[in-house]
């Protein structure tokens, strides 16, 4: 079965991102740091301004027009996110600040249900967001934390995972759906099947994955899924936790306060039904509405087009990056999203980043919040170029030629 996918009109798309016409050090901005945070289309910026200009009040419980309309706009985004993730119910969508908070929520709340002797598995390529909360849980509650290795190519080691699950004491497998350093997609369905076969639940950190691929939490049979708005062309300050309803219902609340209660007396409080049980206090109302605009915008382009465009960029980069003498790409995953980490002989990644910036090219250099992976790779830092829907082949070429000039200058 093959189908023709029209590539998106990247020129038209770029015109929707005001920041892409900015200059940096007098040069055109070539923004290859979208995996850290994506730029925002006018649709998102305007959605946020419009709320604050014409239709804003605190939500829930308000009996006046502004409050009712704002509540509707906020709650409508829950439905959008459910659709975006293929979740069976909008009530399984919980709004958090970011992916980090979503994972911490699970570590505190679901974590409090785990018992001494049970184990949580994370992979060797996790972002700190999906490692440190589990270390903190381990230190709080005495559960065991174990590390699933990765292969030479930088893929998850599924055989090792299967073996580790054999121990029979694993309560949760928490892994990234796409590495923010190596760029490889994880076969989520395979992880879920292995985990479920041994009675463990699975959490996927989808912070990178949702930007690059259509995700369907039912298709991959996930139990928990998290992502973060600012990487998906949406606002900062808003993230998402999806979880199966029965899990959410069994879990105690994370934070206490307004809106998450059913009734309160001095002696005792009872909790609101999900999802509200997990949303204490005034939420990021404007940012949630902005996230809704981002999802609408992404879906208007469509994941077929997004993935096709990305594949073209990834193939191109895989061809031209090795033209830089002394450059080594880290990892060679089966299925790469639009992220390349690399190092260069005799040039430190930080020097690369600064000198590229001098040429208008923004990349990231460092440990990418994945220090343990760096130690595993025997590196202190890498340079990372990451692609978005607004990235062009010409920008990849600009990166490559700037790297070649830096190399000539340095060596």
């Amino acid at each position, binding site marked *: 079965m093959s189908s023709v996918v029209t590539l998106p009109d990247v020129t038209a798309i770029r015109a929707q991102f005001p920041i892409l016409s900015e200059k940096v*050090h007098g040069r055109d901005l070539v923004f290859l740091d979208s995996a850290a945070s994506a730029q925002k289309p006018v649709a998102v910026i305007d959605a946020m301004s419009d709320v604050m200009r014409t239709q804003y009040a605190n939500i829930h419980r308000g009996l006046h027009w502004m409050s009712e309309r704002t509540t509707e706009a906020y709650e409508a985004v829950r439905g959008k996110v459910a659709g975006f993730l293929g979740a069976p119910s909008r009530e399984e969508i919980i709004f958090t600040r970011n992916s980090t908070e979503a994972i911490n929520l699970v570590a505190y709340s679901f974590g409090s249900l785990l018992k001494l002797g049970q184990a949580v598995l994370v992979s060797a390529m996790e972002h700190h967001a999906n490692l440190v909360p589990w270390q903190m849980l381990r230190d709080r509650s005495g559960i065991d934390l174990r590390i699933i290795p990765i292969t030479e190519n930088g893929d998850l080691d599924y055989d090792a995972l299967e073996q580790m699950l054999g121990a029979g004491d694993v309560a949760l497998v928490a892994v990234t759906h796409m590495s923010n350093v190596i760029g490889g997609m994880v076969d989520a369905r395979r992880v879920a099947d292995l985990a479920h076969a041994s009675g463990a639940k699975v959490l996927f950190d989808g912070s990178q994955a949702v930007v690059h691929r259509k995700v369907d939490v039912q298709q991959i049979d996930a139990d928990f899924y998290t992502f973060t708005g600012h990487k998906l062309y949406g606002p900062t300050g808003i993230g998402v936790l999806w979880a199966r309803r029965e899990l959410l219902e069994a879990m105690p609340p994370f934070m206490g306060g307004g809106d998450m209660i059913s009734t309160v007396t001095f002696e005792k409080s009872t909790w609101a039904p999900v999802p509200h049980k997990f949303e204490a206090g005034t939420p990021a109302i404007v940012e949630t509405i902005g996230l809704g605009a981002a999802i609408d915008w992404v879906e208007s382009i469509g994941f077929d087009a997004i993935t096709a465009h990305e594949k073209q960029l990834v193939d191109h980069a895989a061809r031209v990056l090795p033209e830089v003498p002394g450059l080594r790409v880290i990892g060679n995953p089966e299925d790469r999203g639009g992220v390349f980490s690399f190092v260069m002989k*005799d*040039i*430190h*990644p*930080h*020097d690369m980043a*600064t*000198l590229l*910036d*001098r*040429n208008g090219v923004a990349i990231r*250099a*460092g*440990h990418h919040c994945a220090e343990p992976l760096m130690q595993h790779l025997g590196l*202190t*830092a890498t340079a990372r170029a990451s692609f978005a829907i607004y990235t062009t082949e010409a920008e990849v070429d600009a990166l490559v030629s*700037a790297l070649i*000039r*830096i190399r000539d*200058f*340095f*060596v």
Partner: protein
Amino acid sequence: MEVEDLYNSMIVSRSRAPEFSGVVADETNHAEGNNPLCGDRVRLTLRCEDGLIAEAAHQTRGCAICIASADILAEAVAGQAVRNALQMADQFVLMFENEDAGGVLPGNLQIFLPLRQHRARIRCATLPWIALKEALAHDAE
């Protein structure tokens, strides 16, 4: 290409082939500087005699700026009174906040000044100097 205006050729050459790398014989003072954020690490050894720094050397793992800065430090402080060296360290750190502060420094320390436009990299240049202050913390009293 605007590399030269930021990375003076001395930064490049001294980072590629440092002249004062290693450990001094009969060291009297030492200190280590670490930047966990970027993994830069400097180990500085000194031999002080009669209130003077007779010799300095460094072992540096890190970026070009950090290596070059450590190497130029080792050259600049050799033969200086401890008191002077500490003053140089203060001036060096200060010049990134206040351009004039750099004026009193030897020219080869001023080559780092363009980092003012790349604030996140300033600590790469200052790390060796902070290590120097620590190494001399007791001699200064």
